[in-house]
Structures are given as structure tokens and as C-alpha cells.
């Protein structure tokens, strides 16, 4: 419970204690606490409160810069060439500039989640009231908001309690953004520390957003068996009126469902979605359909199937209006952050807007009222559906060949392709009516459309690819377990035993966008590999969709093959981007659940715990956005390593450890206070892999932690060595660094590991009770 600004006036009061006349009492806020946990050292940390912790991490994982751009052009002195030892006009060096751009990027990401959270919170408070209880999982969840407790020292009980959390996020983000101004911060490590701070704020914002929508909108609450939802172009019934929603902010989409339900049209209209709005929509209404990740925008719109397109915010193609106009589908923009040049019709009567759309008076409108969007989109879809006749903009097979004949093989398309796909060759082949080349491109295509922009013949190359792959698109009939939200405390308790007994080798989270080097299926492959190996696998966002877009030989997706519980071999879809907070939240809860470490305002201690003990790895195989950057940063500050795909190198720097430097890996043994070797684990904090094979080997290695029991380490090593043998070849060269005692050696690999250890002059070392913080060393109580 929390109330803001209370004023009391008392004219006159006599009491045993005192006599008061004309007393005015003004109280900024009243907080009633039912929480007896003492406040930790760092509630609402400022930009520098956790700097010492960041420095500890950054001294192990020094930024390795890979300038994506050699210049700085942020002020009018520029452009400044920063190559070599050159400095910019303001004095900035290349490393500082790279970190500065990372900070900018992280600020954009965190601001996006925080503003999204603000919209959701405002909307849910307006609708359900400030006193609507925060409830992520009923009796199964004791720690309702681990990140909020940890960072702010607040235990939110109602939606209203979440407001000060967002106030704090907004305050910090303003300061963080200010850091990037010309002539502010100049040290690269200080920039990096602020990147970490931004990431932490980002996770806080995400937690608020998902807590609010899970609590208020009736989403599954920490439900391992959340229902399955249809996924894929092939699942959509194009004979019905179809509405497409794109983006991240679910209230307008939810209002469409509400309107259809209230008017008994729920079964008559297909409500389909792309990106996180669709994930959250299936949490609201499991019968809604997910088209696919962000890369499906162009192909789905051009198919002509959607009768109405509704966009909210984030990761939406900015040319959606043009594409929508091509298929004569009205576009409704619903967010102040994304107005697309459309006329604001928020205050016009719904009848008038519907009429304007149906008569074709407008091609798009801005409607900043979710409820009105729900009505207009539904009515327009129903009215337009018979008229539009699914007017698409895809060429027929014959037309493809005809157009392809214009190709001059100038290769501009291939140069423009982010994945260097053999586009020109495929187009040329199509000229002879052989569409196999184009068909083969479909799977790896990111749907960015850059090939079209580059084409001197103005060929609609993306449409050619999608048309040629028509059968593939029809076969896209998959499913996904709808986002369950939080992880139950009891699930975490249950996996404690199997983790220390070496039955669960780690936790891997596949998150983020769809900028994949080789299509969605790689995510599905990796998820399957790790689930089969009894890792706990989490998914969220576009990666959660990609994971579902593949079937095994029995025709089952990963969501049908594996349980949705947080357990060995479970595939746990937490939900949309903002649900990522439940993954970091679960790591935090481990400290509370097993060690009873106080979370309240106690970030550094808990991050030290997570870093040294919780074998979690994040994988953003198709990381594209600034949000992905801030999400990753939030994991880094907690000491959770992140692996990205090859496009992730464009985040300008990696955070790499140096296994060869023994001194870098010293930890305190909390039992004795001695500084001891903790092993190069986890070896990196942020690293890009070029192929999924390389990534899988890295994931297995990065799941190791200095506290691993011997059984746990043996299991992790067995997976690491086995994956390396399968996908790279031979036993990895660094096993001797990762074996501490003979009991760490995997039983089934004992002979080869023994031989390897002998070659490397291996010596036994002890398993510490690891910490990087000298204050965590136990006071000697033993007599």
C-alpha cells in the first residue's frame, strides 16, 4: 500500500502529549510496510553507487573494441576520425566513443521498455485502479518482484506501488542520456559502468511492465502449462476477415479481442500478430495467432491476407503505411511514439472513422484510445473483408520469370543483403522459370527488403522470394507455449537438488530479435539440443517464436516435445520482451531461496552471488535492437554472460575474459578469506559466435561457475566436451583449466580427460566458496 501526498489540518487538539493549534501536517508519501527485511546498502542506486562492482567485472572482462564506425559525427566539430591514436575535437578516444555509442544504444533500449512500462501501468491503473494487487503467480510466488526488491528496496503490493519504481527509472535514464553529451564522460570504463547501470534500469522497467500486465490483464500467472497458441502463416484462415497487430504494447490488440467477444464475433475474425504484441495477445487470448517474428512483416502484409493493420510501438517497419496502401488495407497507429504522419482521429466518433476507412477516404489514422481502436479495427475488418478480396501485392509465378529477366546481375542486391545471400543468382535463375534458387533463400531471408531498395531494375525482390516459396509459407503451421510469466519459487526449490547433484548442467535463455545469420531454425536446433541435454531452457520474444518454428521427425515443435516447467529439459517461454525480467528475476530469487540472502536494496551482494553461483547463460542469436543491447547489459551487471550471433559484433565491443591470465581469476574463498584461483569461469561476459555450432560449445562452457560441485562440473564438462567433439572436433584445448579435482572429470570421458590433463601438467586445486567482495568473507566464528 502506498499513497502519495496526504495533508491533514487540525484546528485545535489537546492531548496528554501536547497541545496543538492550527496544525498542518503534509506528508509526501505514506508507505505501509509488511516487510521486515532490513534495508540493504543501495536502494535506488545512483549512477555511481554500483561503480565499484562494475569495475570488478570490467577488470576481468575488459572491453574488446570493434569499431563499427571509425567516426564520431554527434556534434558540429565532426566528423572526427578516431582511428589509431587520434582523438576527436572534444578529446574523445576511440574506446570511449565506442562505449559512448553503446551507452546511447542502451539508453534508447531502456527508455523504450520504461516508456512501454509507463503506458501499460497508466493503462492498467486507469482501468483496474491503483489498488489492483500485484500478483504474478498467486501462492506459488513469494518474491513477487525480485528486481524491484533488489534495486529499489520496495516490495510492491499494488499497481500503485509500481509508480515510484518507474519514477526512478525515468530519473536515471535522463541522467544516463545526459552522460553521452559532448564533453561529459571521457573514460571508456566509466561509460561501460553506465551501460551496466542502464541495463539494470532496463530490467526494472521490464519487470514493472510485465508485472502490471500479468496482474491486471489475466495473463497466465507463472503457469508451467500455459496453453499452446498457433504460430505461422499456414495457421491463418484467410477466408475470414483478418486483423494484423504489430509491435509490443498489447492494450489496443486486447481491446480488439474484447470488442469481438462482446459482439459475438470472436470466431468470425482472425486476430493475428507479429512480434511481441502477438506474444502478449496470446497470453490474453490463446486463440489469437502469431504470424512470426519481426522478419515476417513484409511477407505477411504483401500476401494481402490482413484486412486491417494495427501498429503500436517498437520494431515496426517504418514504411508500413506504404506497404499497407499497396494491399488496400487500412492502417491504424495507436501510439504517441509512432504516429506515421497519420491524421489524429482519436476524438472522432467511431462511426465516422469506420465510414472513412470503408469509403477509402483515409488510408490510415492515428487513434490514441485502445478501446476505440478495438471497435474501429474490428468493424473495419468485418466491413472491408468482402470488398478487399485479399488484394495482395505478390507476383504470380509467371510474372516472377518475366520480371527476373530484367536482372542484369549487377550484384547490388547481394551487396545490400545483411546475410550476403546469393540473391542475384537466384533471380537470374528465376528468369528461366526455375524458382528453386529464390525458394531456397526464403528460410535465411531476414525480410529487411534492402535488396529491393538496391535493385537498379526496381524489382520487388523480396516479393519474388516469398512468392517462390509459397509452399513453404503454407506449411508454416507451428505452435508456441504462450508466455507463462514468472518462475515459481517452488520450481526453483525443486531444481536446487538436481543442480548440485549434477543432473542439470545449467540454464540457457534464448531471447531477443530475429536478425539471424541463417534463419529461425537455428534457434529451434539449439533449443532442442540443450533441452535434450537436460538444461533448463528459457525463451522469450522473437526467439520464442523461432524456437517453435520447426518440427522434429514426429512432427512436434519444441513446445510439444518438452515440458513448460522450469526443470531439467523444460522449455520455458516466459513471454514477450518485457518478460525477460522473469529470467533475471529467477536468477535473483535463487539467492533468496537457497541462501536467504536479503534482496532488499542489496544489488552488489546478490550480483556477486549470481555471478559466482548461478550457471545461467543468455543467448540473443538474432539480437538487432537497442532494446536487445540494454537487456544484455542488465544480464551483465548481474554477472550473467550473453552470447550473440554474428550480427551482434555490430554492438561495437565484446567483454572478453583472458583464461590465459591466472591473476585475472582470483576470488576470495568466503570460508577462509584467502584469495584463491577460481578458474576462468564464466570465461566471457559478452561474446559473438559466428555459427550456431560455435555458439553451442560456448554456451556449455559459459554455464560453468566457480561454486560448481564436482558432480555439477563433471556434467557441465561432459556437455562441453561432447558438443566440442561433435561440432568442432576433438577434445577442447582448455579442459585442464576447467578441471579442479579428479571428481570433476566426467565418468564417460575419464580416459581421454586423464590423458589431456597429463599433457598439460595439470594440478589439483580446491573448490572455493567464491566471492569477489572481501566483505562477504565470513567472520571467524569458529573457535
Amino acid at each position, binding site marked *: 500500500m502506498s499513497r502519495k501526498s496526504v495533508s491533514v489540518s487540525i484546528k485545535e487538539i489537546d492531548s496528554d502529549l501536547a497541545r496543538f493549534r492550527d496544525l498542518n501536517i503534509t506528508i509526501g508519501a505514506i508507505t505501509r510496510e509488511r516487510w521486515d527485511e532490513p534495508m540493504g546498502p543501495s536502494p535506488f542506486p545512483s549512477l555511481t553507487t554500483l561503480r565499484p562492482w562494475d569495475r570488478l567485472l570490467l577488470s576481468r572482462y575488459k572491453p574488446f573494441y570493434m569499431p563499427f564506425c571509425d567516426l564520431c559525427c554527434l556534434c558540429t566539430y565532426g566528423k572526427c576520425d578516431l582511428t589509431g591514436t587520434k582523438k576527436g575535437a572534444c578529446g574523445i578516444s576511440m574506446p570511449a566513443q565506442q562505449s559512448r555509442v553503446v551507452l546511447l544504444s542502451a539508453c534508447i533500449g531502456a527508455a523504450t521498455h520504461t516508456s512501454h512500462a509507463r503506458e501499460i501501468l497508466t493503462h492498467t491503473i486507469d482501468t483496474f485502479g491503483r489498488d489492483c494487487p500485484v500478483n504474478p503467480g498467486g501462492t506459488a510466488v513469494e518474491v513477487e518482484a525480485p528486481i524491484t526488491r533488489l534495486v529499489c528496496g520496495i516490495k510492491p503490493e499494488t499497481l500503485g506501488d509500481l509508480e515510484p519504481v518507474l519514477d526512478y527509472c525515468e530519473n536515471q535514464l535522463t541522467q544516463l542520456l545526459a552522460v553521452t553529451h559532448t564533453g561529459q564522460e571521457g573514460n571508456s570504463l566509466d561509460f561501460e559502468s553506465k551501460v551496466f547501470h542502464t541495463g539494470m534500469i532496463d530490467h526494472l522497467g521490464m519487470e514493472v511492465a510485465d508485472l502490471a500486465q500479468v496482474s491486471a490483464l489475466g495473463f497466465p500467472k507463472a503457469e508451467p502449462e500455459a496453453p499452446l497458441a498457433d504460430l505461422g502463416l499456414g495457421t491463418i484462415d484467410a477466408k475470414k476477415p483478418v486483423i494484423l497487430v504489430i509491435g509490443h504494447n498489447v492494450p489496443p490488440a486486447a481491446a480488439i479481442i474484447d470488442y469481438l467477444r462482446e459482439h459475438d464475433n470472436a470466431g468470425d475474425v482472425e486476430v493475428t500478430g507479429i512480434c511481441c504484441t502477438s506474444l502478449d495477445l496470446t497470453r490474453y487470448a490463446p486463440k489469437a495467432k502469431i504470424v512470426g517474428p519481426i522478419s515476417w512483416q513484409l511477407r505477411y502484409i504483401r500476401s494481402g491476407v490482413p484486412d486491417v493493420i494495427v501498429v503500436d510501438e517498437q520494431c515496426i517497419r517504418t514504411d508500413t503505411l506504404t506497404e499497407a496502401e499497396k494491399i488496400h488495407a487500412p492502417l491504424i497507429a495507436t501510439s504517441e511514439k509512432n504516429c506515421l504522419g497519420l491524421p489524429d482521429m482519436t476524438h472522432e466518433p467511431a462511426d465516422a472513422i469506420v465510414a472513412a476507412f470503408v469509403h477509402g477516404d483515409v488510408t490510415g489514422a492515428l487513434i490514441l484510445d485502445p478501446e476505440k481502436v478495438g471497435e474501429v479495427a474490428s468493424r473495419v475488418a468485418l466491413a472491408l473483408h468482402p470488398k478487399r478480396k485479399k488484394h495482395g501485392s505478390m507476383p504470380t509465378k509467371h510474372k516472377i520469370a518475366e520480371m527476373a529477366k530484367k536482372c542484369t546481375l549487377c550484384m547490388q542486391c547481394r551487396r545490400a543483403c545483411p546475410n550476403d545471400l546469393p540473391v542475384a543468382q537466384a533471380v537470374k535463375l528465376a528468369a528461366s522459370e526455375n524458382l528453386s534458387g529464390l525458394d531456397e533463400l526464403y528460410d535465411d531471408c531476414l525480410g529487411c527488403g534492402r535488396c529491393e531498395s538496391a535493385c537498379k531494375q526496381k524489382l520487388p525482390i523480396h516479393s519474388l522470394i516469398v512468392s517462390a516459396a509459397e509452399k513453404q509459407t503454407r506449411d508454416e503451421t507451428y505452435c508456441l507455449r504462450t508466455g507463462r510469466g514468472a518462475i515459481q519459487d517452488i520450481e526453483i526449490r525443486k531444481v536446487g537438488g538436481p543442480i548440485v547433484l549434477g543432473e542439470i548442467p545449467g540454464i540457457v535463455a534464448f531471447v531477443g530479435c530475429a536478425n539471424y545469420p541463417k534463419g529461425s531454425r537455428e534457434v529451434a536446433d539449439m533449443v532442442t539440443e540443450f533441452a535434450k541435454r537436460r538444461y533448463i531452457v528459457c525463451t522469450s520474444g522473437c526467439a520464442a517464436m523461432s524456437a517453435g518454428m520447426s518440427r522434429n521427425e514426429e512432427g512436434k515443435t519444441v513446445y510439444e516435445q518438452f515440458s513448460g516447467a522450469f526443470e531439467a529439459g523444460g522449455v520455458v517461454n516466459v513471454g514477450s520482451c518485457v518478460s525477460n525480467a522473469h529470467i533475471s528475476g529467477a536468477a535473483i530469487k535463487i539467492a533468496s531461496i537457497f541462501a536467504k540472502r536479503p534482496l532488499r536494496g542489496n544489488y552488489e551482494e546478490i550480483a556477486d552471488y549470481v555471478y559466482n553461483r548461478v550457471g545461467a547463460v543468455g543467448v540473443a542469436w538474432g539480437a538487432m535492437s537497442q532494446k536487445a543491447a540494454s537487456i544484455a547489459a542488465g544480464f551483465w551487471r548481474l554477472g550473467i554472460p550473453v552470447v550473440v550471433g554474428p550480427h551482434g559484433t555490430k554492438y561495437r565491443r565484446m567483454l572478453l575474459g583472458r583464461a590465459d591470465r591466472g591473476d585475472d581469476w582470483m576470488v576470495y574463498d568466503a570460508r577462509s578469506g584467502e584469495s584463491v584461483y577460481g578458474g576462468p569461469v564464466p570465461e566471457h561476459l559478452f561474446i559473438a559466435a559466428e555459427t550456431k555450432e560455435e555458439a553451442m560449445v560456448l554456451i556449455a562452457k559459459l554455464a560453468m561457475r566457480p561454486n560448481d560441485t564436482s558432480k555439477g562440473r563433471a556434467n557441465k564438462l561432459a556437455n562441453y566436451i561432447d558438443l566440442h567433439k561433435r561440432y568442432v572436433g576433438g577434445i577442447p584445448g582448455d579442459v585442464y583449466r576447467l578441471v579442479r579435482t579428479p571428481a570433476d572429470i566426467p565418468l564417460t570421458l*575419464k580416459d581421454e580427460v586423464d590423458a589431456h590433463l597429463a599433457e598439460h601438467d595439470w594440478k589439483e586445486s580446491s573448490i572455493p566458496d567464491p566471492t569477489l567482495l572481501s566483505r562477504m568473507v*565470513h567472520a571467524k566464528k569458529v573457535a
Partner: protein
Amino acid sequence: MFENIPVEVGLVHEGERVRKNDMQVELGGPQEPEKFEIVRVRPADAVEDGKILINGPDIADMAEGKHYPLGIVVEISGARLEPDLEGVVERRIHEYCNYIEGFMHLNQRYDIWIRVSKKAFKKGLTSLRFIGEVMIDLFRKELPLIEKIQVTFIMDPAAIKPLFEEAMKTYEARDARARGLSDDDVDVFYGCALCQSFAPTHVCVITPQRYANCGAISWFDGRAAAGVDPKGPIYAIGKGTCIDPEKGEYSGVNESAKQRSMGEVSRVYLYSAFGYPHTSCGCFEGIAFYIPEVDGFGIVLRGFRDVTVNGLPFSTMADSTAGGRQVDGFHGISLEYMRSQKFMAADGGYDRVVWMPQETKERLQSFIPESVYGAIATEQDAKTLDELKVFLQSHNHPVTKRWEQDNPAGAGDMPVERQEVSVLSGRDIPFTAGGFRIILKNAKITAEKVIIQPIRPGGERHGTQKP
């Protein structure tokens, strides 16, 4: 390693399933009445090291898609091996078999169910000899206590019968020994520090009558593990002198706990939830929680999703139980400990248990004394403390006698008084100096924030228990 085995052997195959359509043959399983696997410790001269005997048709001789009986007898010898360890060694068979690609092993003892996949068969897994080789190799590597080992596979229906019957007798004798073994019968307990990787101050003490909290490690497991790797996370604890037989306090246990918990825990009562109760990490199977209003214990297992009779769900109470602390009246326990005669013996055992979920009660029926079974309420009998009191009284639960002793006026009927929360306590307001009268005129008091905090929420709960 395993160069001669035609299929892969490794951890990655552990979770593999062989479905009916992919199955070459089935060994044991629900359709075969006689199947078993057993480990026996033998004298050294009775074991021929490395020998693999196959008695009856081998995989290659079996008809595709059919099922056959199977007995697996693993005979081992070694100077430090003792029959008490047979069960522990035996459970490894399951693990090792599942490392083998295309060889699925389910269950244990007389329930084994094995399938060989067609794919593995085609790769050359045509003989149980390969399975024997893998087993022998892994047993030797993991358990150096084993000096000699031989494995026999029996598929011959005539030969299996007497061996099956003998195995059944051995299981029974083993179970009787485990049930009959009391803490007084042994000199050594075992400690487990595995969970210290997550809860650095927690240590489990494992005795014949007190399983590890996680439910995964028995005294026999502890004995085997400590024998194999004496420096490992599971280690022997000399009992030392018995300080209090009723509460289960031993000097050796205290000393060990003090060392291993770095001084956080210096005394342990093995059979009590009060005073110096055994600590918990986070993965205990259930909680025994004290209910001061009725002076008895409720029990809840972690799968129970509703709130318990005291209005709190498992997850909330677990929060008070975990983390290697000694919390009076909140006790992390394993299911197996609830089957022990020493279960909270110092506090009255089941005579002190007043509530548990129906499902748990049924599960433990044979371990709860008949005299009190009917008097223990479940969620179907009592959802609130008031209902519980009525139920206990009407069923004459043993705790009701304690009410009379403690409070002749009838404590059971007394409403539980809640402490009022006061906003302006003397401590918070500085102008309470005695002897002065403070007059404020035209005063404006502005507070940025007022925090209303109960003195110790939940704290009273712990404080009001009876020793």
C-alpha cells in the same frame, strides 16, 4: 574409451526414449513377470574380474518387436565393500545403461524395463556383452572400492526363476535392515555439504533415521559416497558422545556443524524443530511449521498450492525456513524423514502434528500411528485456525491435553490477539520527554515519507512458541 562399443556412450544419451515403433526388442517391462537387477558383494575368490556371462538368447537371437525376461546380476568384491552398500551400487546400473545410445533403462530392482532401439541394433548393438563391458568399465572408474567385478545376464526363463526369487528375498532383507537400522546402531553419521554451493552455511546431517532434506541421500548413500571420496562433499561424522538422546544432540555433530557452517551453527538437535533445529538450504521436500494457537505442527509438502491452515502457503513459509538458518518452529524436512520413528521425536512426533494436506496424509498413512491418524486434520477438515481448534477438540487430538496443562482456563479457546499497529509510537516522536508540556502553534509538519512498519511482522509467530 568405449572404442569397442558399436554405439556412443555418454551423458548426452541419458534422457533418450525408445518408442515402441523404434524398438528392436524389449527386456523386462510390464509384460514380463520375472525381471530384476541386483548387485551382490561376494568374497574375492568368488568373483572372476571382468567376466561377462550370457545365459540364454542374446539380443541378436531375439525376434524383432518381442519382449523377453531379463536378470542382471552384478557381483563385486573389495576389501572395503560391505553388503550395506549393495543398494547404492545397484542404482548405478540405471544411470550407466542410459549413457548407452539406443539402450533405454527404466525403473530398478524387480521393475526394470529395457528397450534396445532398431537404430542401435543396426549399428551393431547385438549383444548384452557390450552393456556388460560398459558397466564394468564405469563401475571401476567411479567406484574404486570395487576391486573385482563380474556381470551375468540371464534371459533363459528356466534359469531366471530361482535367481528372481533369491533377488526378491535379498531386496526384502535389505529393506528390513534399512528400516530397522537406528541411529543408536551406528557410530558414524554422514554430512552433506553439496548444497553449500548455493547455501554456504547449511549442512545436512544424514543418519539412518534422518534422510537428507532433499530426500535424495540416505545414510547408505552417504556411507558409499564418503567411502569412495573421503575428501568429497559427503563426509563421515563421528557421532561423539550423545549429549541429549531425546533431542538427538551429539558432540560430534555439533563440532562438525560448527566447522562446516563457519560458526553459524554450533549445536544441532536432530529430532526437534525447536532450540537448535537442523537447518535447510532451499530444496527441502516439505515444512513442519509450528502453530502456536494450538501448540502443534502443520506439515506441508512443496507441491501443495493452496494456503495452509495458518493462512500461509508453502512458498511464504519456505521463505522463513530456508537459507541455512536455525528458525524455531519452521523446519525443512524430507518425506523420508517423515517415515522415520525419530520424526520430530523430541517434540512429540506425530502426536504433535495437527494438520497436513489430505494427499500427504494418505501417502504417510502406514507411518502415522493409528492412535492419532484420525485426529490429524486436513484441508478438508479445517481451513482456518478456528476450524482446526474445533476439529482437534472434537477428535481428542493429543495436543489438546497440552492446552489444559499450559492454561487451565482453556488456551485453545482464546482468541489470538493481534498487536495493533500504531503510527505514532513513543520511539518515533521525539517530543515525549517526561515532565514537559509541548505546545505547537501554527505548526506545519512536513514529512517526505511516513513508513508504517509493524514492529516485527511474523516475528511474534516465532516468539510465542512453547519450548
